[in-house]
């Protein structure tokens, strides 16, 4: 571009739709096809902002709507620090087969206020339209002295038109105004609304692809007026925010759903848009629905592209995660089916690019549904999505534990600083205490309303908040998977809140963690262990309670029978725990051995005396080897067996399977593994035990 021009001089550039053309006998031309590039370009590089606006269809007249009498579209475009005034002249061209097409000739100029100068220049040049025979090159921009044209007043009649409506001003064909007047009207309209919009108008058009993106539209004919009026009244409720490059976002979504390999630049476009607060959730919904997400869900339509689309939606719009889980028909106890495998592979490929908080938002949206009565999702399913090795949400499992913990701390601090407090469903507080800092909660407020309301009564046994039991179960599972002591504490807390007691294993673990001689406490809530009938009876004795004689007699008989049978089964190895209530570490260990040990011994004996034990174990190990080999490329048989041995802490090598002592060791190891992972305890390597072991082995190898 020229460097020093007099202030009244402007430089107008141009470019046109690229076609191959042929001159006709009558001096006209026909198209022999598009080139996919622009032609007659008078500038080295067309500004990117203008190109993006064209790709976003902001100059597009609808197909079949361009006419012999050209349509003119004017628009001011901002891109970074630059602003451009652009005018497109759209006329109809034909190819050698007689098919028509809209041909565009664009004129543009630097600056926000040059549209009227372009109009003046264009009219002074006798309104040039698209012409492939008139070749131009980069040195042939147009210089125009704006002082050479005397200012003409816009048509007075037009200036009386009302400006208050926010929708586009649609002018009837009989209200024919000139371009300058249309431009002035658009200018006045943006000034009267002052919403930071930029001038945009369309003149002499039959139909536009996005009429809501204009301030003033002059219809070319009466039918055109009716069509445009209908389109404007049917304007989508949610239109793209002006700041967004909608075409780039759509391309990114399409690129991810339709490609077998993930291109990270597409993921980046989506993540950048996610970080833009100006994009409302509703707009994201329109984007995903435009690609068919809604139809896929309502019609149960599963193609790889749709599975990827709905997966992406579940990450981008966290509230849709529950719908996604039920659409994919996730069953935590079963191996992923074909559709789920596609979804998991895709999640694995894109998950690192998304902020963990966004993923955590999805899980947080599930928690109130988990704690609903009746629950809309099971703890097992939530745990699966949070811990399955290929799941995207595995990345935020720690985040979730931390956020729940932080919320409880917040509630506790609030209650310790203020008096009694009641948080009503409407969000208003009903006491004189300061308002609860709802905005500081990390999870959804609705999840905690009951907890906040009853926080001070949590220790009372009569007030059990049953709804939190699924949350307790979820956290227990997370603890089992991740061994996170915080998850263990939170799980115990919610068991206490919902059941008034804590499962023995968790209780013992917390006792161990807190190294206290008293009952452990979490958020000042004293934990009570889950006590079996026998244990409660024994405690009666040891505390010297006076109990009725008939109860004592019954107990003695019951105890004798139990002792007799356990002695019979276990011989001298039996080790009975009686002193659990002293809470020393030694005694708690011996308690665990109590009744469970009888069951364990029974199960192990049944297993190793069953002729099928060897076969089942052998097959189980082989299945794990095969599955892990498939799932973890590059893993070797030796490595897998070694990892199985490490996880089970026993030698599972097939070569030694016949030895009796070996069988017992294996059955014991499997039983222990089952008991540690809350699986069905039978000492056999089959079904869910195989799946769990497989998962562990894969985790270790990975």
């Amino acid at each position: 571009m020229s460097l020093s021009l007099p202030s009244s001089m402007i430089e107008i550039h141009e470019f046109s739709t690229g076609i191959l053309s042929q001159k006709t006998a009558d001096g006209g031309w026909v198209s022999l096809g598009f080139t996919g590039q622009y032609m007659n370009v008078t500038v080295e590089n067309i500004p990117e902002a203008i190109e993006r606006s064209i790709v976003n269809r902001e100059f597009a007249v609808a197909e079949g709507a361009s006419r012999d009498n050209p349509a003119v579209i004017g628009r001011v475009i901002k891109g970074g620090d630059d602003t451009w005034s652009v005018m497109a002249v759209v006329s109809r061209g034909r190819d050698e087969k007689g098919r028509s097409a809209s041909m565009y000739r664009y004129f543009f100029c630097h600056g926000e206020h040059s549209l009227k100068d372009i109009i003046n220049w264009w009219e002074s040049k006798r309104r040039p339209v698209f012409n492939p025979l008139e070749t131009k090159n980069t040195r042939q921009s147009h210089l125009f002295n704006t002082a050479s044209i005397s200012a003409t007043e816009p048509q007075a009649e037009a200036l009386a038109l009302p400006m208050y409506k926010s929708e586009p001003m649609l002018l009837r064909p009989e209200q024919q105004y000139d371009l300058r007047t249309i431009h002035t009207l658009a200018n006045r309209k943006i000034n009267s609304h002052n919403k930071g919009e930029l001038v945009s108008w369309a003149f002499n058009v039959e139909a536009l692809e996005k009429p809501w993106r204009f301030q003033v539209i002059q219809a070319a004919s009466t039918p055109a007026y009716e069509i445009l009026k209908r389109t404007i009244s049917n304007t989508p409720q949610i239109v793209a925010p002006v700041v967004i490059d909608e075409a780039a976002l759509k391309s990114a979504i399409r690129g991810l759903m339709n490609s077998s390999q993930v291109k990270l630049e597409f993921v980046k476009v989506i993540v950048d848009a996610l970080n833009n607060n100006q994009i409302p959730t509703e707009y994201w919904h329109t984007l995903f629905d435009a690609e068919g997400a809604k139809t896929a869900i309502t019609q149960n339509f599963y193609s790889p592209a749709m599975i990827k689309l709905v997966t992406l939606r579940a990450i981008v719009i966290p509230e849709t995660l529950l719908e996604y889980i039920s659409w994919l028909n996730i069953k935590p106890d079963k191996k992923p089916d074909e559709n789920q495998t596609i979804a998991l592979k895709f999640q694995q490929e894109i998950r690192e690019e998304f902020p963990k908080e966004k993923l955590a938002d999805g899980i947080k949206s599930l928690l109130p549904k988990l704690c609903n009565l009746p629950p809309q999702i099971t703890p097992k399913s939530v745990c699966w999505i949070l811990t399955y090795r290929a799941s995207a949400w595995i990345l935020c499992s720690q985040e979730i534990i931390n956020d729940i913990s932080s919320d409880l701390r917040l509630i506790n601090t609030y209650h310790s600083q203020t008096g009694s407090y009641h948080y009503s469903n409407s969000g208003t507080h009903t006491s004189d205490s300061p308002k609860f800092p709802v905005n500081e909660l990390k999870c959804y407020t609705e999840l905690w309303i009951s907890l906040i309301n009853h926080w001070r009564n949590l220790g009372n046994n009569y007030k059990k908040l049953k709804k939190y039991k699924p949350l307790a179960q979820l956290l227990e599972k997370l603890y089992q998977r991740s061994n996170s002591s915080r998850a263990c504490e939170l799980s115990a807390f919610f068991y206490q809140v919902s059941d008034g007691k804590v499962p023995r294993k968790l209780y013992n673990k917390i006792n161990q963690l807190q190294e206290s001689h008293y009952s452990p406490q979490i958020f000042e809530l004293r934990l009570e262990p889950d006590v079996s009938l026998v244990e409660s009876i024994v405690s009666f004795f040891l505390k010297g309670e006076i109990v009725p004689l008939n109860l004592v007699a019954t107990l003695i008989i019951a105890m004798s029978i139990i002792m007799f049978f356990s002695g019979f089964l276990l011989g001298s190895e039996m080790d009975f725990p009686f002193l659990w209530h002293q809470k020393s570490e030694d005694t708690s260990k011996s308690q665990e051995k109590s009744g469970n040990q009888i069951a364990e011994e029974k199960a192990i004996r049944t297993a190793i005396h069953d002729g099928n034990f060897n076969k089942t174990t052998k097959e189980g190990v082989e299945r794990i080897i095969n599955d892990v080999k498939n799932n973890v490329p590059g893993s070797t048989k030796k490595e897998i067996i070694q990892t199985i041995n490490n996880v089970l802490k026993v030698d599972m090598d097939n070569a030694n399977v016949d030895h009796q002592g070996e069988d017992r060791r294996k059955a014991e190891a499997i039983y222990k593994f089952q008991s540690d992972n809350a699986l069905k305890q039978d000492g056999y390597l089959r079904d869910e035990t195989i799946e769990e072991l497989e998962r562990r082995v894969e985790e270790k190898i990975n």
Partner: protein
Amino acid sequence: MYNIIKKYTKPEALAKNAVVRVIGDRGSGKTAYMASLARWPNADTTSPVQSVIPIGEAGEDLITKAQNILEQGLQLEQTAMQHDAINVQDYTLKITLKGQFSWKNPQVGISQLVDISISCKDYSGEFFSDLLQQSSSLQLRNYLEDCLQATGIMLLVDGNSNRKDLEYTNSIDKFVTGLDRTDRDLNSRRIALVLTKCEQPELWVNHHNSSFLAHARFPQLCQRLKTWQQMGGGQVDYFTASAFGMLGNRYPEPNVTIISRDRGGISAVIKDPKRWRPFGLVAPIYWLCTGDRHKELDKG
């Protein structure tokens, strides 16, 4: 045993899908094919096709084109050539049809309904007629990379343009070699050669014998595709179709008004939109999805 029976006779529809790129010369009828398929006008109740559902915004655009342009007896505009293949419209259609027994896909036969779905990009004709000739162009590389996603290619050729056989052969030669050089994973693909505008009498008489018709009209093109198949590039099969169809049954005549005719074939509009019933549109898609020919669909 019960489980096996249950597995193969489950009531829900079986799903098969394909990612397709539609290529072919300018004016070969690619967009009309897609629009006609999405619109599926005057469906024949005896046809194995139960329904055609366009998915998403792009699919709905096809219906709009069919209604506002084809049904008004007008000609579709030329599809503009996009600079970047990512901006080419990607149409998703879900087609539900009755299953048929086949040794290749036994489960498809026993299941009552089959859902075939395609995600299909309708390339502008300039890709085939011009871009493929520019071997060093970045734009061509961009398009070929986009083609790598496809499991099937639908090559549409105006059945009346047999004088361009050599040009098509040249283009398809460039296409398959270009694809071969771009594809590191050596994926096998299916190419369906579809002769369009087969409502024209000289094609109509043999439209049931599509392989014969294709070889007779385009011997060199068929030979080149055969060579590609023999070299392990993938599978090729031949189909005949018409986006506008015929009028009448006993004394059929093409339901088209011809606008122009030259060595590049014919261009035409629908003569009687009320009786618009296309034929042969689903058969190539079924084959691209399953690798199997559907006898009922082949009957037209």
